[in-house]
């Protein structure tokens, strides 16, 4: 799965957790979930749970800690999808 597809799908995953819907439309790999999209830091865990379910992956603690920007979320998701279950 290419990075652009994951980015588009991530918009839907993240949507319920941000009030900043306008910025959500124009996110790039450089968009920061907490600083730019104003997502409550406690809700990052909900995004991780939703991403795990959507991609049928498991995101460990070390990987989760990297998920600040959209680009790093895509890194983690693609990396986990490429790992044998």
């Amino acid at each position: 799965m290419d990075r652009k597809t994951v980015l588009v799908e991530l918009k839907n995953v993240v949507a319920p957790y941000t009030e900043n819907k306008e910025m959500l439309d124009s996110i790039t790999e450089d968009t920061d979930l907490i600083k730019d999209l104003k997502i409550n830091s406690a809700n990052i865990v909900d995004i991780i749970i939703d991403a795990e379910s959507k991609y049928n992956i498991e995101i460990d603690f070390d990987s989760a800690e990297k998920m600040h920007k959209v680009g790093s979320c895509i890194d983690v998701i693609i990396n986990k999808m490429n790992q044998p279950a």
Partner: protein
Amino acid sequence: MSSRRVVITGLGVVSPNGVGIPDFLHSIQNGVSGIEFIPQYEELRFNCQVGASPDFEWEQLRNYITETCLYGLKSKAIGYGIVAALDAWKDAGNDIVGAETHWETGCVFGSSVADTEMIKNAITRVDAKESKKLGSRVVEQIMNSGITAYISGRLGLGNRVISSSSACATGTQAIIMGYEYIKHGLAKRMVVGSSEYVDAYIFGAFDSMRVLSRNFNDQPHKASRPMSISAGGFVPGSGAGALVLEDLEFALARNATIYAELLGASHNSGGQRDGGTMTAPSSQGVVRCIREALEDANTSAQEIDLVSGHLTATSADKLEIQNWVEALGRKGADFPLVNSLKSMIGHCLSAAGSIETVAAVLQIKHQFVHPNINLEDPNPEIIDLISEANLPVKIVNRDINIVAKANFGFGDINACLIISKFNNHGQKDSIS
């Protein structure tokens, strides 16, 4: 010690017979029952198969909280509490959304249990070894302070924020705590109330105590019969009530509309002595509580126009009336009018006190006494004490200046309010 006058400037209600003040007012004036047959309770083989729940549209919460906050919110008790409290806040003439913290305003909101359906969800997930999937929104909804946290966060309340619990006295006690903080100058304004969501687990536990109404499952509107000889137990209900209490000068300075004055109050415990137990109040404690409330209000028993009782429709009704007779020193035709909202909405447990107090304030504001429905067969022993003429079965329109409102809870907890029509010329309570 200087003592501040406390007035009521906002009301909100989520009641089984009306969500929002206009609907609720219409229902209590017309004796509309909110009690229904619950098929699930028949399937669960409960003795009591009727209950009372507000007709609550979950989606309306979009008008109260942000979309992200609503997403993942599941606790009904929190939903009810948010609507009641924020309605009261708006009713008092305030905007919900502001950037600043209101340091002068606090919140005391009560509940009897945290949402057991939410707790069940956590138990089920954890037992299935899926705790990882619970996410970030469970703790805030199963903590006892959940409702208060949502309300104070949305309104930006910066004074005392307290989550209280004292069984069926919870709502009244929460109001009294807010009153005391303002009276003693510790806060200028308090959002007070309580919220209850009775699910099958809570209902089942009461059902097992054999204290619920079981003879009217096929006639739900007749199932809650306070003070009647055929009263066979109470009907659990869900909902929330909220009030904005305010320092009189603070309210006048912002030109607030004043519903009524909270003249005085008391809450105590009988200590589970002298007839008081876990589940029954000591008469001595109740009488003391009512008399202390009158004293705090600087009001004589003779001035009481209406007693809004706890009166759940159990065998305790007669004892309660006896306690009122002793506390007020009035009996027979000289006794004030008495009503019990529970005849229409059942017993909303922790929310009973706040919903019933909203009803009491509305009766003062609109100068009426709501009917006791289902009182075709009043208990003769109660009539002997206070005469049938004091138990209205139809709306009574007359001057209502002072209402005594009490609720009593498991643990032998008593709470009594003395609420008065607001009169800015009366300075009787300005300094004590």
